[in-house]
């Protein structure tokens, strides 16, 4: 039955309101897939594990996760995120959280997450990130828990920063080093190398104009490595729209995938010049504040985990790391999965996480 006001509406308005009513009725009947989709971080309930801020400096945010067992391993574990990505990928949801898993195994877990840089923080480069920020957080962990040793676990570029710090401080606090999908060989980042060595590409102009490189720019650059993946994921979503658990998990991943952090201008300059174009890690010519970053100086137990189908950091970019590191006790594991599913996918709980825990636990006492 139409209300008097509805009768006065224009034909288009009438059709719109009818469609609106049909959709409302469908939602009210709980037809799966038609309910409003959660979008924000709070609606998606990402990062559910309780944590406290321990230390903050420039863009670095150091969090401590509340231990869940009465007895924990002596050596704390510091997860170092990539400066372009948000840390909640390692604590995506209950039952799908590396952080939660490590806490349940008895580890004392800290995370170095990154905040978006302000305009005046465009001056922060590789040296500031490695020496001041990673170094500052390692000192803060020692102050907080009273232990001098630490296990560093770096993800993607976080692994690169962790390895650089350990190489600069071979007699420092790092007792064990773990890197996930960590790039070391700039030549292996083929597409970026081609773009950035083109005479038309000018990183200085880009940074001078923009200050910090916007997150959308980073996101589009990453999507160029597999341009149709996001569309395929949307198709997968449509094919599984009646499965609420799938929809929510998909939206959490999708939200994270486009939630890239801006990169400080100087860091972008350093990465393009020294890593991608200069390939200075492999050539062993990289210097930070006058100190050479020689990976051969890393002598602590070292584990590198790479993903078989990683299109962001392909094998050509990551496989040299194990050879460069000087540790006698070193291991590389190549596991099924992609760059993200390796650490946070549905199968990570059966594949990566138990192996990581096994490797760390015997070295954390």
């Amino acid at each position: 039955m139409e209300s008097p006001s509805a009768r006065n509406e224009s034909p288009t308005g009438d059709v719109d309101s009818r469609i609106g009513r049909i959709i409302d009725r469908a939602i009210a009947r709980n037809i799966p897939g038609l309910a409003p989709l959660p979008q924000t971080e709070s609606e998606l309930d990402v990062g559910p594990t309780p944590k406290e801020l321990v230390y903050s400096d420039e863009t670095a945010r150091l969090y401590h996760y509340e231990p869940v067992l009465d007895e924990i391993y002596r050596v704390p574990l510091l997860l170092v995120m990539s400066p372009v990505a948000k840390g909640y990928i390692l604590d995506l949801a209950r039952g799908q959280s590396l952080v939660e898993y490590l806490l349940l195994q008895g580890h004392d877990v800290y995370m170095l997450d990154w905040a978006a840089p302000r305009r005046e923080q465009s001056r922060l480069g590789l040296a500031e990130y490695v020496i001041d920020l990673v170094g500052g957080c390692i000192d803060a962990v020692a102050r907080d828990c009273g232990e001098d040793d630490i296990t560093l676990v770096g993800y993607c570029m976080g692994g690169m920063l962790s390895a650089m710090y350990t190489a600069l401080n071979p007699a420092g606090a790092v007792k064990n080093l773990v890197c996930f999908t960590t790039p070391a060989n700039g030549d292996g980042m083929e597409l970026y190398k081609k773009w950035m060595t083109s005479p038309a590409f000018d990183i200085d102009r880009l940074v001078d104009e923009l200050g910090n490189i916007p997150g959308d720019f980073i996101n589009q650059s990453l999507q160029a490595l597999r341009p149709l993946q996001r569309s395929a994921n949307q198709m997968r979503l449509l094919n599984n729209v009646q499965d609420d658990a799938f929809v929510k998990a998909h939206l959490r991943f999708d939200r994270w995938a486009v939630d890239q952090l801006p990169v400080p201008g100087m860091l972008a300059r350093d990465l393009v010049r020294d890593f991608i174009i200069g390939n200075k890690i492999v050539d062993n010519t990289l210097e930070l504040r006058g100190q050479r970053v020689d990976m051969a100086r890393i002598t602590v137990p070292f584990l590198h985990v790479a993903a078989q189908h990683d299109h962001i950091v392909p094998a050509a970019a990551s496989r040299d790391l194990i050879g460069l590191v000087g540790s006698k006790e070193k291991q590389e594991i190549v596991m099924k999965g992609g760059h993200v599913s390796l650490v946070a996918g549905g199968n990570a709980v059966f594949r990566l996480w138990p192996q990581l825990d096994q490797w760390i636990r015997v070295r954390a006492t």
Partner: protein
Amino acid sequence: MSNDDSLDPIRLWREWFVKSEKAWSDALTEMMGDENFSRGMGRYMHEALHTHRMFSESMAQYLANLNIPSRGDILDMSDRLAHIEETLNHIQVELRSQRAQLTKLAAGAPEAGARKRPARTRTAEPNPS
């Protein structure tokens, strides 16, 4: 795949797309790695930056005349908020540190209700899983 959907042509097309996505993506990525594409992209970037500067300057003046905040004004505000957030972070860290000190002082007085830290004595027993 449920039986009801097995003959849905749109669904079949979506499944084909998902299966063949990797091959199409690889082809596109290879195309983007071409010398001409790289050069074209560099040129496009220069033009986009030039346009960005031109619009930023002219729009800032136009918006100022209309008494409407420009992108620069919003960024200024964002920076100020970030400063406030940073100050709050420092206060939060300081409070945590003070609480830890109080916990140590109250160690002999369990009624203080301070949270106890777990013992760091766990040994590396074999993983049951």
